């Protein structure tokens, strides 16, 4: 088991990951009829209202629009008025109040207000600490996850052994539909498992409750560090097989022969590729969360022998520190600083956000923010995804 580093990257100039507000929004947007309220200054909602756009949603990120005097007078009453108005206008299924740095400095309590409001309206209210000085983007998402789990708790629903829920994904993740499809297919074809509703992927708190409670959760994506054994995303041929074995271990299943057969078949297909030719002189830079970044880097470094430079989140960095394999790994570096690192590394293929998009190298959109709607949405997961990536690299070679 890996332990997450609490040290911050003090030599970093430009971060890759945001504060807890972003994580809180990633969760809220994925629940049908849920409404976020950013309790803090307008800047904190204004900047992040792009987040719903990642999921092709209206940028509805209301704010209590606090200014200095509101904090001096205490902001509880203002929040209550905000909740009342939100209820009157939208009748949400859930309200997520995401607090900000300014509010966290004031140390006010909002749980009592939330309880009172819920008693009056029946609408659950979650208070999520989004403050950037106290936590990371991933903390916001994890807080949302555990709070929503509490709402869904039930002892009456019997577990169906063949059902799993893919928890830890978000509608705002890039290519999430492909990702979900490729993972579901892997589980179905290899292990005979079918996927139930996933939290934060258009989850309906009423309709999906029973099906969710009847399924076992696989902790992926934003939640990959919440289990005992951290397992990066299923990239590559060997990587995918390791991932399937991890699923079996997590769920207490024996690995079916069928899975071994499919793995061997994938290896045979891989052998048909001229990997030396495809990967010759290739240098890859990856900007991604730990779950994705570690998985994809491993495929390149360990299965294709391609040097990789990785910029990832705290968890990914901690994981890599214990078991290093990439040529270079940076913790939470983004923006133009990462762009310079890509140049220094002489990367000729870069996976990442629009921040590292350039004519200087082949660019594959991989991580939000992606500002160019026309970009292809690959996820490259599983055996199928690995071949998709290799085919893409072959075409790149032909093109160049």
């Amino acid at each position, binding site marked *: 088991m890996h332990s997450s580093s609490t040290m911050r990257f*003090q*030599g*970093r*100039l*430009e*971060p890759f*990951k*945001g*504060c*807890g507000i*972003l994580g809180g929004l990633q969760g809220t947007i994925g629940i049908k009829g849920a409404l976020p*309220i950013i309790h*803090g*200054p*307008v*800047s*904190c909602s*204004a*900047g*992040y*209202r*792009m*987040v719903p*756009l990642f999921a*092709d949603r*209206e*940028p509805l*990120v*209301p*704010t*209590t*629009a*606090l*200014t200095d005097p509101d904090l001096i007078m205490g902001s509880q009453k203002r929040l209550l*008025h905000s909740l009342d*108005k*939100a209820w009157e206008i*939208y009748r949400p299924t859930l309200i997520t109040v995401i607090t*900000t*740095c*300014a509010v*966290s*400095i*004031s140390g006010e309590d909002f749980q009592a207000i939330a309880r009172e409001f819920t008693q009056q309206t029946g609408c659950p209210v979650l208070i999520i600490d*989004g*403050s*950037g*000085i106290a936590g990371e*983007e991933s903390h916001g998402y994890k807080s949302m996850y555990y709070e929503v789990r509490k709402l869904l708790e039930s002892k009456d629903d019997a577990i169906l052994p063949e059902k799993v829920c893919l928890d830890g994904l978000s509608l705002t993740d890039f290519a999430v539909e492909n990702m979900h499809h490729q993972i579901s297919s892997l589980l179905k074809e290899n292990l005979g498992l079918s996927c139930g509703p996933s939290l934060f992927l258009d989850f309906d708190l009423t309709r999906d409750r029973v099906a969710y409670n009847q399924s076992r959760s696989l902790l992926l994506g934003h939640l990959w560090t919440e289990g005992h054994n951290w397992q990066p995303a299923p990239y590559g041929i060997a990587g995918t097989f390791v991932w399937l074995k991890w699923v079996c271990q997590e769920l207490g299943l024996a690995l079916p022969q069928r899975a071994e057969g499919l793995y061997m078949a994938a290896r045979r297909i891989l052998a048909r590729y001229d990997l030396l030719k495809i990967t010759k002189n290739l240098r890859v830079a990856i900007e991604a969360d730990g779950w994705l970044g570690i998985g994809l880097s491993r495929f390149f470094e360990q299965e294709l022998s391609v040097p990789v430079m990785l910029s990832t989140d705290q968890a990914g960095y901690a994981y890599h520190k214990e078991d290093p394999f990439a040529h270079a790994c940076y913790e939470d570096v*983004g*923006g133009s*600083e990462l*762009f310079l690192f890509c140049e220094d590394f002489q990367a000729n293929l870069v996976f990442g956000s*629009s*921040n590292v998009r350039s004519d200087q190298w082949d660019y594959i959109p991989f991580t939000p*923010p992606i*500002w*160019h*709607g*026309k970009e292809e949405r690959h996820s490259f997961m599983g055996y199928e995804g690995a071949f998709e990536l290799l085919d893409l690299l072959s075409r790149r070679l032909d093109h160049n």
Partner: protein
Amino acid sequence: MRSYRGSLTELLEEWKLTDNPFWADYQILGPMFSALRIFLGMDDVLPVIVGSKGCAIHLRFSLIAWGEEDFDLGKRPISVLEYPLDKIVVGDYQITTAWIEKMKKLVEIRKPRLIVLMPTDPLTLSGTDMAGIANEVNTSLEVETTFLSISAISGANQWVGYDAALRALYQPLMGKKYAKRNAVNLVGWMWPSRRRTHEIGACIDMLKTLGIEVASIISGGSSLKDIENSMEAKANAMVCAALAGDLLHELEEHGMKLAGRRSPYGFSGTTEWLEDIGQALDMDIKDQIRQLALLYESQFQANKEILRGKKVFVSGGPGRLIGLLHTMLDYEVDIQAAALFWPHPWSHQDLLHMFEEHDLKLKEFIVSPSLYDLEEIAGKYEIDVWMGGYQEQHTCKAHGIPFVPITVYTVPHVGFEGAVNLGNKLIMALNGYSFTEDVFNAKEIEPCIHRQQ
């Protein structure tokens, strides 16, 4: 946050805005973004966010959404000097050697003449000694370093950010004497571009045609030297009147008249803007203005024949809305409702001007609109075509209303040509053209540009 929804005449009588604790805003950017984009658009100023890294992330989101595609600002550095809660609580603002070394490399690449430290809320609220941090950065990097005293919590819109940023740039110059020349500064352009097909290029070209020298652009694409040179101009004219700090009034005491306060939109607004600048520079340019307008007159009239009487909704910031109202009134459309994204101190006077001088009439007016306001407006009025911020596309799609985004800069909306461009866009939208490629990217049209023979 102060808002209003009701009749325009009542608003103009009292200018009474009420507090709204639930603002589903879709357009406002906050004080940190406004300050940041003033500095980031400049060649030799390096902004550094101090405190929470989340601000840097969301400011970059906004910045890219507002300037990456058209103006390539996305690759400019937004550095962070991060302080977690445990450091702030004990007042430990030590700067690590690793950070300084990184900054030294960045300074080598960017060669800034000024570093501006921008505190985030935890620092302003805890009364952090920003002067001390600035002093340490200055000593370590040997680059002049200053700081702002505002952060996100300081305001509910851009205003205090623009004002603070302009002050940081102008304060060192205020005590000095400058020889004046008959030139004008263009204020309110945020981007490095000077392209003719961008609004700034259109303004520069228009003034050049009239024999008016532009001293400096404030502040996109300029340097600290340009800011200093701007002190030699006799007037400041607004390209976008949203970017207006109180400082512009103070500069009048330094011999820089505030002319062309309302952005040059429409035939009427452009004429007023140019005449005002001419007056401030003691130049009689009325005939030349008429000649310039004549180049576009026939296309404008042709558009007017189609647009007259069309039912329209229009929204914009304190600069652009006034301009768009000028254009819409010139086209004699029937404005059903209008929304002002955020009010600045000139908004009341500017709207009064439109009411009294241009007979502005509409059924409903909103200050600081929310998405739910737009929804109601779309349901309440029969609107033939809607002009507004890019994210108003969602309301328009839901209600099947033709939409023209006004926050896209690649075809000028300013000047006489801008009036024709906007008219063309309205007609295209009415004919079924979609200006929205996706939620981030707009489709554009060819600009209309004529030159005098």
